C-alpha cells in the first residue's frame, strides 16, 4: 500500500514537471509572448527590448525554464497581468482556492445525495416508468451545456426562489479566518454570515452538480443492476435476510467500488465546470480566475492555476484509489 502510494506520488511529480515544461514553452512561444501581454499593443520597440532584457527573455528557453523553476520553488510564479493586475499569481490562487473547494464540495454532495439513491431505486425498478424517466433525465442532464443551465438558474430560479445569484456573500461585515466563508461564520459565531454564504452557494452548486449527478446516477444504476444478478444476493434473499440488510450489506457495499471511482473522476468535470459556472455567477473562485485569464491571456495566473488543477485532480484520484481498501477487504490483503 505504502509503496503503491509513493509510486503514484513520484508519477505525479513527473507529470507536473512535464506539464510545467509544456505550459512554459507554450507561454514563451506564443505570438508576441509575455512582452505583448504586459505592454499591450501600443508598445514602442525600445520599451519592448528593455522589458525583454529585464524579464530574461533573451536567454535560451531552457535557461529561462530553470530560472522559472528556481523562482517557483520560493513561491514566485510571476505577477498577474489580467485577472487582478499587480497581484502575485500565488496570492490569487490562495485567495480563491477555498471558494472553489466550497463550491465543488457542495456540488459533489448534491450529486451524490441525489444520484446514488435515485440510481439504486431505478435499478430496483428496472424497466419501470421511474427507471425509464430517470435514465432519460440523466441523458438530458449530460446534453445541456453547463453555462446555459447556469444562466437558466440565475435568471429564472433566483427570482422565483429569492436566492442570490451573484458572488460569494453579500457585503456584510464578516470576520475572515480561513477563507472558507461557510466555516468562518461557525468559528467566529457569526451564523448569519454562514447562512448568507450558503445561500450564495445553492444555485451555482446545483448548476455545477448536473453532470456529476447524471454520471453518478448512471454508474450507480449499472453497478446495482450487476450486483442484483449475483448469486450471493439470491442466497441472502433465500435465507430470509430482511430487505434493508440485503440492501446495505450485500448490494450497496458491492456496488460502491465503481461509484467511488466515478466520483473521483468527476472532480475533473467539477474543475472544468467551475470555470463556466463561476463565470456565470461572478463567484470569485479559481474557475472565475481561469475564465478571466483565458479571456485576457493572463499567462502567469493560467500557468499556476492549470498546474494546481492537475495536482488536485491527480491527488483526489489517488485518494479514491486508496479508499478502495476501506470499501473492499479483498484489496486490503494484497
Amino acid at each position, binding site marked *: 500500500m505504502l509503496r503503491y502510494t509513493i509510486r503514484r506520488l513520484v508519477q505525479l511529480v513527473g507529470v507536473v514537471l512535464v506539464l510545467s515544461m509544456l505550459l512554459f514553452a507554450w507561454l514563451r512561444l506564443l*505570438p508576441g509572448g509575455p512582452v505583448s501581454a504586459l505592454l499591450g499593443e501600443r508598445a514602442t520597440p525600445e520599451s519592448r527590448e528593455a522589458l525583454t532584457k529585464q524579464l530574461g527573455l533573451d536567454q535560451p528557453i531552457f535557461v529561462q525554464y530553470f530560472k522559472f523553476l528556481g523562482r517557483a520553488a520560493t513561491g514566485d510564479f510571476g505577477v498577474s497581468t489580467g485577472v487582478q493586475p499587480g497581484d502575485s499569481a500565488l496570492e490569487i490562487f490562495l485567495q480563491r482556492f477555498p471558494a472553489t473547494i466550497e463550491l465543488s464540495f457542495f456540488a459533489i454532495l448534491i450529486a451524490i445525495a441525489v444520484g446514488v439513491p435515485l440510481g439504486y431505486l431505478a435499478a430496483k425498478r428496472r424497466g419501470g416508468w421511474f427507471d425509464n424517466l430517470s435514465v432519460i433525465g440523466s441523458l438530458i442532464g449530460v446534453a445541456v*451545456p453547463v*453555462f446555459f443551465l447556469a444562466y437558466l438558474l440565475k435568471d429564472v430560479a433566483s427570482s422565483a426562489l429569492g436566492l442570490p445569484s451573484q458572488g460569494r456573500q453579500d457585503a456584510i461585515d464578516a470576520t475572515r479566518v480561513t477563507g472558507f466563508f461557510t466555516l468562518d461564520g461557525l468559528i467566529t459565531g457569526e451564523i448569519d454570515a454562514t447562512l448568507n454564504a450558503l445561500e450564495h452557494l445553492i444555485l451555482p452548486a446545483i448548476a455545477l452538480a448536473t453532470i456529476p449527478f447524471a454520471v453518478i446516477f448512471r454508474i450507480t444504476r449499472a453497478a446495482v443492476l450487476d450486483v442484483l444478478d449475483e448469486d450471493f444476493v439470491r442466497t441472502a434473499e433465500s435465507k430470509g435476510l430482511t430487505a434493508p440488510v440485503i440492501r446495505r450489506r450485500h448490494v450497496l457495499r458491492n456496488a460502491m467500488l465503481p461509484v467511488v471511482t466515478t466520483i473521483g473522476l468527476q472532480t475533473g468535470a467539477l474543475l*472544468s465546470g467551475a470555470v463556466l459556472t463561476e463565470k456565470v455567477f461572478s463567484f470569485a473562485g479559481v474557475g472565475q480566475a*481561469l475564465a478571466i485569464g483565458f479571456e485576457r491571456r493572463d499567462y502567469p495566473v493560467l500557468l499556476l492555476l492549470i498546474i494546481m488543477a492537475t495536482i488536485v485532480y*491527480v491527488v483526489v484520484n489517488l485518494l479514491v484509489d486508496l479508499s478502495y481498501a476501506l470499501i473492499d477487504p479483498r484489496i486490503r490483503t494484497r
Partner: protein
Amino acid sequence: MALGVSKKEKIDGLAETAGVSLAASAWKRLKRSPVFLIGATIIGIFVVLSILSPWLAPQDPSVPMLIDQVVKARNEIPPPQPGHLLGGDLQGRDFFSRLLVGSQQTLIVGVGATIIGLTGGLILGTLAGALGGWVDSVVMRIVDVMLSLPSLLLAFSIAAMFARPSQFTVILAVSIVQIPVFARLLRGSMLAQRHSDHVLAATALGVKKGAIVFRHMLPNSLSPVIVQSTLVLATAIIEAAALSFLGLGNPDDRLPEWGQMLGDVQNVFDTHPHLAAWPAICIIIVALGFTLMGETLREALDPKNRR
C-alpha cells in the same frame, strides 16, 4: 436434444448459431430498440437538414437585412415578422435562417473533432497495443500526462494557444482531448487479444505481423471505439459551445454554428432569452440523439447481452 435428430442436423444447427457475427446480432437487437430508433431518427433529420439547409433557409444568414430595426441604445432587436419567422439577431440577421444553416457548421465541428480524435487515437493505440514494449511505455506516458488534466480544461488551454481562433482551432481543441481516450480504449482491447487463441493461431500459421494487427486484432477491437465515437460527436458540440462562451471560439460568425450562437449572446440572456434558448434546444436535442445511439450501441455490442 430430441432423439430423432440426425448427426448432420446437429452440426448444421451448431454452425448456424456460431455463424452469427457480433455485428449482425447487434444490428438485430438495435432494430428492435425504440431508444436507438429515436436517436437515429433525430440524427437522420439533423444530417439531412445540415446538408440541405443552404437551400432550405428562407434568407441569407450572413446579411444584416433587418439592421434598421436594431436599436442598440434601447436594446431592441427585430421581432418576428412575415418572412422572418423568429425575427432577427443582435446584428439584424434572420434568426431562423441562421439556426437552420447553423446545423451545418455544428455537424462539421462534431464530425471533424471525432475524425481527428479517432485518427490520433487509432495511431497511438495501435502502436501501443500492437508493438508493446518501450513503444507502449512511451505512448502510455504521453496518454497519462494528457489524462492527468481535466479534459475540458485541457481543451480550453489548447484553444487559448492560438493567436487567431477559427473554426479549425475549435475543432482541434475539442478533438486533441479525445485522442488519449481513444488510444487507451484501443490499446486495452488489443492487449487483451495479443494472447488470445485466434492471434496465436494466426502466428502459428505464419501470418505476417502487419496482417495479424490489421486483419485480426484491429477489427476485433473496434466496437468500444465505435461507441466512443458516437459519444464524442455529442461532447464535441457541447464543448465547442463552452469555448465560445469563454471567448475562445470562432470569432467569424458569418457562417453560424449553434455553440457559437449560444456563447455569443451571453450578455443578453436576460433581455432576449430566445436568442440563447433556440440554439441551446438544438444542441440538447442533437447531443441527446448521439448519446442515445451511443448508449444503445454499447449495450448491443456488449457480448454479455448476446442471446
